[in-house]
């Protein structure tokens, strides 16, 4: 038998966060990749409800210059 895959628990569910704030850039920055794209749910283990809210928050933060769109800029 191969070892069972590790079960992820949504970090927002665990800390009982209901509303994800787009102004809190430090928390949002944990969920973007090396090239500054939004990290997929597959890798972070976040539930669908929170992933939708998180991605909206990241997009708002990007528009206001709190988070980058891309890693490299000309």
């Amino acid at each position: 038998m191969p070892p069972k895959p590790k079960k992820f628990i949504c970090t927002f569910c665990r800390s009982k966060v209901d509303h994800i704030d787009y102004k809190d850039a430090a928390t949002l920055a944990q969920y973007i990749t090396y090239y500054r794209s939004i990290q997929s749910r597959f890798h972070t283990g976040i539930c669908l409800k929170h992933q939708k809210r998180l991605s909206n928050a990241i997009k708002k933060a990007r528009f206001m210059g709190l988070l980058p769109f891309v890693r490299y800029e000309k």
Partner: protein
Amino acid sequence: MKKYELMAIIANDLDEKKAVSQVKESLADKITEQKGSVTFEDFWGAKGFAYKIHGQKWGYYVVLQFELDPENLSELEREWNIDPKVVRFLVSKVDPRAGDPVTQAERVKEMEAQKKEDEIAEMEAETKKAASVKKAKSEDAASKTEEKDSEGKKDAVDKKLDQILDDASLDL
């Protein structure tokens, strides 16, 4: 009346005092002009952008919460789009799930406190680990001494047996 939240970037060709007065002039006053009321105001101060906006690298951030009739919002947005001192703005509905509005200074403080707590917890965990390792080591040593003791006892019993067997006075 609906609750809205506005985040705006003020142009960086002003100094900080002028930027604060500019916020009042071009944001708060215009909201009250449209029969709205500002319920929360938080001036973040100068902050760098994650990327260049209109060739600029930084600006003054401000967050306002206000109540307004939805019909008047489009007029406000039109004015802010024209205003050269408002570099960029974002109006969003206040999430009913969100609690009381928090200022940026409080948010930063909370984050730092959380970091310290985490560090302390980590340190405690490490010391506990070290203590448990020490305990395990001492237990190992104790068990070894016990083994030695039992070996010594065995030797003693063997000797006694030999003595008894060697004793010629006993008829077996």
